[in-house]
């Protein structure tokens, strides 16, 4: 994992060269906020952003995506054959994804790439994508990544990590894909000192003001948390929209639908949200999470307890702060985490006597 320097003056030439080998995606400003879009023109790339409104997950997991298609028209060449929807998996690169969003990709991969099931759509896109991260030197007041398992210079999920070294860029090659991208961009590089990267990292981490405590979540009794008395109060304001789940980079639930038009049909998937009332409705009409409190509780239990227990890799949250900023009624996961963690530690103490 070597560190190199790239002269800033060379940046756009490198991008132009990259365009011949990769489809490029990056943060693009749309009126008042940024979102990840395909870069039709390199001028649209705007790296002077704190973070995108929606996460980068739509790059691997589009909000609405065709899965299967069929055609019943006897005249059609492929009549009556259901097949995977045609996709383009030419190499692509995401320029300027933040380390929190990149770590989230690794967390989401745990769901889409298991021994039992592999999601071909997500995995094909993931394999085709090279992630070029942009370290955060000016984190927001709502960023709590350092206590959520990552940080402003975290490398998990990235192939290459860029940092602003003043008059030059610092780049850390993290994987072979990252090296391949560097070679393709053809930037004139020089070896950089590992130390300046570490200094920048330390400085950035010190700027994080928001922190959560999670040490008592794993040891907490699940039923104690489930039956806690604070859920009514936490859930009251919730309007059960899908905002938190849709802006969250680690949420991946989807709903599969069939749509038919004339003789053709397709099976597609759309993002779904555990906040929606019909998320758990059975065909009988029974709904095991029929009330708002049950749904809100489930969301936080999943993120901060069930995931922790199941995978032993920390919480299912990267501290990007989007849900905190976008929730229409200001329900704050950091506050809920505190309630849950405090309950966990309070009960632990009483057990240990």
């Amino acid at each position: 994992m070597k560190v190199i320097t790239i002269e800033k003056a060379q940046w756009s030439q490198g991008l132009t060269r990259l365009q011949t080998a990769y489809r490029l995606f990056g943060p693009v400003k749309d009126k008042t906020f940024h979102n990840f879009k395909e870069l039709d023109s390199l001028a649209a790339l705007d790296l002077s952003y704190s973070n995108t409104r929606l996460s980068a997950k739509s790059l691997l997991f589009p909000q609405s995506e065709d899965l299967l298609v069929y055609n019943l028209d006897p005249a059609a060449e492929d009549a009556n054959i259901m097949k995977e929807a045609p996709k383009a998996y030419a190499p692509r690169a995401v320029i300027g994804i933040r380390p929190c969003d990149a770590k989230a990709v690794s967390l989401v991969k745990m769901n889409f790439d298991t021994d039992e099931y592999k999601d071909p759509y997500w995995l094909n896109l993931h394999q085709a994508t090279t992630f070029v991260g942009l370290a955060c030197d000016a984190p927001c007041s709502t960023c709590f990544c350092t206590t959520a398992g990552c940080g402003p210079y975290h490398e998990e999920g990235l192939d290459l990590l860029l940092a602003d070294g003043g008059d030059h860029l610092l780049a850390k090659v993290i994987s072979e894909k990252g090296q391949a991208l560097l070679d393709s961009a053809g930037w004139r590089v020089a070896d950089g000192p590992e130390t300046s990267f570490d200094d920048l990292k330390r400085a950035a981490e010190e700027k994080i003001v928001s922190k959560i405590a999670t040490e008592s979540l794993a040891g907490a009794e699940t039923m104690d948390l489930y039956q806690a008395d604070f859920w009514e109060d936490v859930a009251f304001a919730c309007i059960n929209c899908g905002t938190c789940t849709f802006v969250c980079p680690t949420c991946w639930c989807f709903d599969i639908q069939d749509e038919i038009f004339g003789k053709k049909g397709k099976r597609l998937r759309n993002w779904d949200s555990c906040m929606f009332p019909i998320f758990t409705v059975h065909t009988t009409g029974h709904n095991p999470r029929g009330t708002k409190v049950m749904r809100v509780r489930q969301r936080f239990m999943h993120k901060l307890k069930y995931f922790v227990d199941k995978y032993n890799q920390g919480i299912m949250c990267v501290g990007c702060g989007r849900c905190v900023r976008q929730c229409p009624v200001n329900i704050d996961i950091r506050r809920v985490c505190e309630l849950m963690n405090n309950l966990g530690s309070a009960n632990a103490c009483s057990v240990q006597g």
Partner: protein
Amino acid sequence: MQYMGIEGDRLHFSWISSAESTKFVRVVSEVCAKVKALGPNQHFVKKEAKVA
């Protein structure tokens, strides 16, 4: 409907009793003529879900 971009001449309302055959013919002919003059409707048409 007009506010959202459908041309006004595509939507018509008329009270016609089943006993008013002449009015029926007149109204139908008028509506057909007006809509034909606008050409095929391009708005609010979904052929198949346009998604990724």
